[in-house]
């Protein structure tokens, strides 16, 4: 017997594969927004750990209903046994797509960066098209993108080009790299401008390394090879940054990809070294505050706002730093609306067959928002903001926009 070579079994504490830890407590199914909204979904317990036991078969990958998982990760957030339910679902979905092929629509949605680049280049025309009933009818028929789903408005001047053109500030205490993501680049440059302005206001130099889509649209559209390709490029570039440069993301889901999913879901080499220095923008600003380095010279912002915590923010495991920050600002009346998932989950709610489900998932949130009657709804995630606006007609903003106003930016 060669016991000394055995390692873990002789150890005092278990180190089992996470999938083995499921105790069938079914907590995940109780919180799953999809399972709570439709009876045609078996739920995360079955699609994740339970099916996973059978996926070690050489040829068995597909489980019916995998595509109904929206990827919100609330199952993982809720699992008392830390089973990485989502990862099993995503891998299986990806394997299924490899075996069965992807739809054109899912291919396109996985390539949102390409799409956005094109949209941005042709901005006025694309925006016009996206609002044209005939075009939308055609998009639904050909691509399977629901005609009622508002599509993001593209901007002609990208954040990347805007940043290159602007003058450099003189002195800085430290430097951070900004992972702005596709949204800021092609759709909401102003958010990026605010992030830069706030950081610089606090004496931090912002650099913008060349970057690729974070890959999450590819992940949720069952195209992990593409996500891995994008992620690999990002990891390579971000690992090239000087060691003392932290990385900031203003999109919840991009940040989570960088922090966690590159290393765990996608197994990208070198990703852990990136993840360890990625911060959500609000998380980072709060850290500055705790270190006594945040400029607290805020102008009052008189506004009554609701805060909706995106599902993926919960997966960050950092609490709600945006709320803490906003409470520092005089005049801000802030209340959390905790009605769970908004339902859009990135590209999930865009799809023709998922649109109604997506709106049903979000309905509790929509009702609460309408009942509250506030000036706007804040959320760190761009697709949450789109969904809340679409579902309620309310205005929405990133929490950073309020902070920018407090610093005097409009």
């Amino acid at each position, binding site marked *: 017997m060669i016991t000394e070579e055995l390692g873990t079994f002789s150890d005092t504490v*278990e180190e*089992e594969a996470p999938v*083995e830890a499921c*105790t*069938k407590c079914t907590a995940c199914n109780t919180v799953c927004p999809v399972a709570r909204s439709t009876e045609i979904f078996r739920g995360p317990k079955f699609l994740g750990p339970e099916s996973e*036991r059978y996926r070690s*078969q050489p040829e*068995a990958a*597909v*489980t019916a209903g995998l595509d109904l998982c929206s990827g919100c990760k609330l199952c993982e957030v809720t699992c008392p046994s830390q089973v990485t339910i989502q990862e099993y679902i995503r891998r299986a979905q990806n394997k299924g797509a490899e075996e069965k092929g992807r739809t054109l629509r899912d291919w396109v949605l996985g390539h949102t960066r390409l799409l956005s680049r094109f949209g941005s280049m042709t901005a006025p025309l694309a925006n016009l098209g996206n609002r044209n009933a005939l075009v939308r009818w055609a998009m639904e028929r050909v691509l399977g993108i629901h005609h009622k789903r508002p599509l993001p408005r593209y901007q002609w001047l990208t954040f990347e080009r805007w940043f290159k053109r602007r003058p450099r500030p003189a002195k800085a205490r430290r430097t951070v790299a900004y992972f702005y993501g596709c949204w800021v680049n092609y759709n909401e440059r102003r958010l990026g401008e605010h992030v830069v302005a706030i950081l610089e206001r606090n004496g931090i130099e912002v650099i913008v390394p060349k970057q690729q889509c974070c890959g999450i649209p590819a992940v949720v559209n069952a195209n992990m090879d593409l996500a891995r390709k994008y992620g690999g490029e990002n990891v390579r570039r971000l690992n090239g940054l000087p060691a003392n440069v932290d990385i900031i993301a203003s999109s919840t889901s991009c940040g989570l990809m960088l922090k966690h999913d590159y290393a765990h879901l996608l197994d990208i080499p070198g990703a852990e070294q990136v993840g360890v220095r990625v911060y959500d923008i609000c998380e980072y600003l709060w850290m500055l505050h705790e270190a006594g380095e945040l400029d607290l010279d805020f102008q009052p912002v008189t506004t009554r706002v609701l805060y909706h915590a995106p599902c993926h923010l919960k997966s960050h495991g950092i609490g709600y730093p945006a709320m803490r920050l906003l409470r520092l600002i005089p005049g801000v009346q802030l209340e959390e609306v905790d009605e769970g998932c908004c339902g859009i989950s990135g590209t999930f709610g865009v799809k023709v067959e998922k649109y109604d489900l997506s709106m049903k998932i979000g309905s509790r949130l929509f009702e609460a928002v309408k009942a509250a009657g506030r000036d706007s709804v804040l959320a760190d995630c761009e697709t949450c903001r789109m969904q809340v606006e679409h579902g309620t007609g309310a205005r929405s903003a990133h929490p950073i926009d309020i902070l920018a106003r407090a610093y005097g930016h409009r």
Partner: protein
Amino acid sequence: MPDTTTGVVVIGGGSTGAGALRDLSLRGIDAVLLEKGDLASGTTGRSHGLLHSGGRYCVNDPAAAIECVEEGRILRRIAKTTIEDTGGYFVSVSEEDLAWEPRFVEGCAKAGITCERISVEEARRREPALSQHVRTVFWIPEDGHLDPFYLVMGNVESARRRGAQVRTYTEVTGFLKTDNRVTGVLTRDAITGEETSIGCQAVINATGAWAGFVARLLDVEVKVVPVKGVMVVLSHRVAHATINRCHKPGDGDIIVPALSVAILGTTSARVPHPEVLPIEWDEVRQMIEEGALMADGVSTARAMRAYAGVRPLYDLGAEAEGREMSRNFAVIDHEERDGIAGFASIVGGKVTTYRLMAERVTDLVAQRLGVRTPSTTADVPLNDHEEEMDQLRHRPAQLGVPKPHGDELGLQPLICECELVRPQDVAPWFKDPAVRTLEDIRRRTRSGMGPCQSAICSYRLAGRLVTERGLDGATATRAMADFLETRWRGVRHVFWGSQLRQAQVTAGLHLELFNLDRQLMFQSQAPSDALLPPPLPGEGRGGGEEAHAPQVASKR
């Protein structure tokens, strides 16, 4: 006058008995099978499920190896739905193993076992689970997994379709004799205690490790040595193919991916009685440690339970002990040997060769009955009624259809979510009089055999005992508790990590949410009209505690 009559009574509901019942029925001989517990609840159901290519025996026991080669090929023809044709690896991890290799290669060649040496790199490519300790690898394409439960049920159902009968939980308490000829058996029902007699022309004693006890009822001796083997079940397959250590067969040198789990086996220790099967911690640890030498993931997988089975080794009078004894079998013609006509015993052997064993003993009995029809079990497939076999059991991980983890499962409800058992998979068994406990349902459907070990499905199945069997609540509740307890006794041996956390969930559900402990206290005070047999003995007791030994007839 006996209460009923038949042609042949087969005693023993393991693979051999079930095989004999089928063989008789195929030859047109009326037969009844009597089993004191449930079908496949003794040796067969507690085997590790390795379908032997013969490689394991090819050096020490060439005769048994050759039988395995032939029978393995026959089973692949006639019982392919009970087999996972995984192929297997024989791996060397030590110097001694390497020294064994030439003999192994020679043995394979002599027995006609296909055996291909492949590079470790190639082996890892095919089987990433092979551990870093692995030095050389042989590929043995004819090793595989034989599902013992499905095999027995398949034989029995096939026989039943031809008019054979099955009585479970029916113990043989004595024989009817006229002069020196056996003319029938006396039986007792384990639940009702009801005693009946069955008249017959011949009796086949296919009780394996229990053969001596049955023979003693006729004052003849059959020397069977009960040899215990302990196995550990992991919660997933770990490997795609079976893995054997390439050495002189020893402890803990087999890994069998079996449906949704992996089974690590086994040990070899003589026991005083086939129902005294204590599981010792050292054995459990040894299974895991030795398994980990061959495959990665063994020591980190979730160990679900441990169980012990008993080999019915036939004592030919030699000095051999345990594994040294032949895995060959013998037909004992008691008329010739002991002067008792109408009685034959079949002893020794292993599940892989059950069909041949059944054929040989049936040959003898048929000959004595003057039936000249030859055995056709080597040619007639087990699932000759394809659609009925599909009803028999729905087998999740098995290769081929139905593949319930695929699209077909859709949104069908599940009774056992771990093992993907649907209501329609359990429903027919509630109508089968041979099924009398929830463990019996488990053996036929795999319900309760997953990681939670019946925490969830036990309630749903107990509910069906009321709605479909018409039992009263107390009896159904007792059945649920027995089911949980039987599982618990096996899981206890691996109570660490996830399985101990699972125990808390199970206790929370049944003791706190349902208040089942108090329900049982109440029932034990109240008069009961229980319709259940007592739980079967030998389900993994031990762990340092004095195992409860059933009454053993005095030994000479």
